[in-house]
């Protein structure tokens, strides 16, 4: 007669929620263990090698999601890839954008629906990224659709603001909109090495223009190696422009897209920041062009995609029991 249920009740009773109990289990015990776990709300982790491994408590999205600071909770940020094509061809671009990349635009209608459904599902902040969004003729309407519903950040290389595109910029709301402009270094050398000759100067011009126009400007630097002197010089430069430290973001290159090297990021180790492109819903903006981080090709209803991200996140957290790292794109 199997006593395994008695042992399970006794051992699990002395185990903190989330803790693991291992019990020797004969093959005949396994259906009983499985039935008991289902009955009692505990999780059967594995039954290999004559051992039943049981976790106290059910897989519940609550604790895993609650462990994460509010602003980084899965689903609090929504990233939208507006187009993919770009006027630049940076050598580390994680989305493989360039002037040669074909346009894959989400379009105003889908963006409006995503942001509306996202706001209803608990999204608190929208990030619009290109390639270069100012290549889109209706980027003003896209931005308006977003800022009408949620605080929005528009990522740009800040180089295209002349003529009609300058008019598009000027028409954008100052309220609830931040412009995130890329600048990798305090002087041209480092920046231009990855982004092309003359690009640092044009980015600086763009930053100044945006500030003069009264926009909130966030500057994001992508660095291949941490160099404290370079970091200090960049902070000094941006401080001098009146950009607050909260709006100065320095992060490493991700080993994605065109990058030969950089931080390796997988769904198991990366806190999700749900990202939508014309092709599907992805785990995180650094891998919006990578099938390993594709969540679903169904964009709508958005809440279903979000549920799936949270379900996977919970599973990874429980499986790995390691803290996922955050890779800041904004």
């Amino acid at each position, binding site marked *: *007669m*199997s*006593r395994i*249920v*008695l042992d399970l*009740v*006794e051992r699990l*009773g*002395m*185990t*903190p*929620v989330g*803790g693991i109990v291992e019990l020797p289990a004969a093959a005949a015990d396994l259906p*009983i263990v499985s*039935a*008991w776990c289902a*009955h*009692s*709300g505990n999780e059967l982790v594995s039954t290999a090698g004559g051992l039943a491994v049981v976790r*106290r408590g059910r897989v*519940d999205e*609550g604790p895993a999601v609650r462990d994460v600071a509010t602003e980084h909770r899965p689903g609090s940020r929504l990233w939208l890839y507006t187009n993919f094509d770009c006027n630049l061809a940076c050598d580390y671009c994680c989305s493989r954008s360039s002037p040669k990349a074909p346009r894959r635009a989400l379009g105003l209608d889908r963006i409006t629906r995503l942001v509306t459904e996202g706001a209803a599902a608990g999204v608190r902040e929208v990030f619009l990224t290109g390639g270069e969004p100012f290549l889109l003729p209706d980027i003003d309407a896209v931005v308006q659709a977003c800022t009408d519903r949620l605080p929005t950040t528009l990522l740009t290389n800040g180089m295209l603001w002349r003529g009609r595109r300058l008019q598009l910029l000027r028409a954008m709301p100052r309220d609830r909109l931040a412009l995130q402009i890329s600048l990798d270094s305090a002087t041209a050398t480092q920046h231009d090495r990855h982004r092309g000759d003359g690009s640092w100067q044009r980015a600086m011009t763009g930053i100044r223009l945006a500030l003069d126009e009264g926009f909130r400007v966030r500057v994001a630097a992508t660095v291949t190696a941490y160099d404290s002197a370079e970091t200090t010089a960049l902070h000094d430069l941006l401080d001098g422009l009146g950009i607050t430290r909260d709006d100065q973001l320095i992060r490493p290159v991700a080993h994605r897209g065109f990058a030969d090297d950089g931080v390796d990021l997988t769904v198991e180790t990366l806190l999700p920041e749900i990202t939508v492109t014309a092709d599907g819903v992805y785990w995180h903006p650094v891998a919006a062009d990578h099938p390993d981080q594709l969540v679903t090709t169904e964009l709508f209803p958005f809440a279903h995609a979000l549920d799936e991200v949270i379900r996977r996140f919970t599973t990874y957290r429980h499986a790995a029991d390691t803290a996922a790292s955050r890779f800041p794109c904004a």
Partner: protein
Amino acid sequence: MNQPLLVGAVAYTPNVVPIWEGIRDYFAGGPAEMDFVLFSNYGRQVDALLAGHVDIAWNTNLAWVRTVMQTDGACRALAMRDTDATFATVFVTRTGAGLRSLDDLKGRRLALGSRDSAQAAVLPVHYLRQAGIADDVELLRIDSDLGKHGDTGRSELDAIRAVLDDRADAAALGITTWEAIGRDELMPGALQEFWRSPQYSHCNFTTLPSVPAERTDPWVAQLMAMSWDDPHHRRILELEGLRRWVPPRLEGYESLFDAVRDQQVSARW
């Protein structure tokens, strides 16, 4: 501003820490903040309540009865779990052992849990006495979680093991342990329930007259407002084994008062 109410509880599993931290956090910032203190056994906890070291004690039914006895009935019960109002004891035996009623226990051996467990020792003996068969049943007492009033369930599991090992013909268990092992469903052919007691009351929050109602009323009101439909509340409610808090059902303690009197269980320990 009042000091937070101090609630005592007994640490019978590591999970009492997340449970009470969750309850404390639920009250934080409200009109009746609280903190908690954990004790290793109910004796210490009731002593601390009587000495005024805690304002409220989360008491088992036996701890409640003993507090009533030591305060000449002056203590007050504030609230209990829905599951505390409908507690019961079941008598189980090996399937096919031929036991169908309490009377069938005559001449047999009954395994009991820790002697300070109302559900697995004090009340089962009371039921035998009421049935007039107490002297005809041999008792096997298994005191494996003394001091905790049977909260750990361990002595009840040991009583079941005694039945499975043929060291006893039957065992007396609280319904929570019977439910925890999946009743007679998960170990088919192993055990069956042959008698179930009338429902009685189990735990409650106990306080003394020295703690004024102006302090406890807002606390009780907020406690009752915990909702199963709120996922944050539900996590605590699930861990503590209830769906909602209810007013205490005091008539549910009468059988235990009778049992304690009959068996001369002391007011202290």
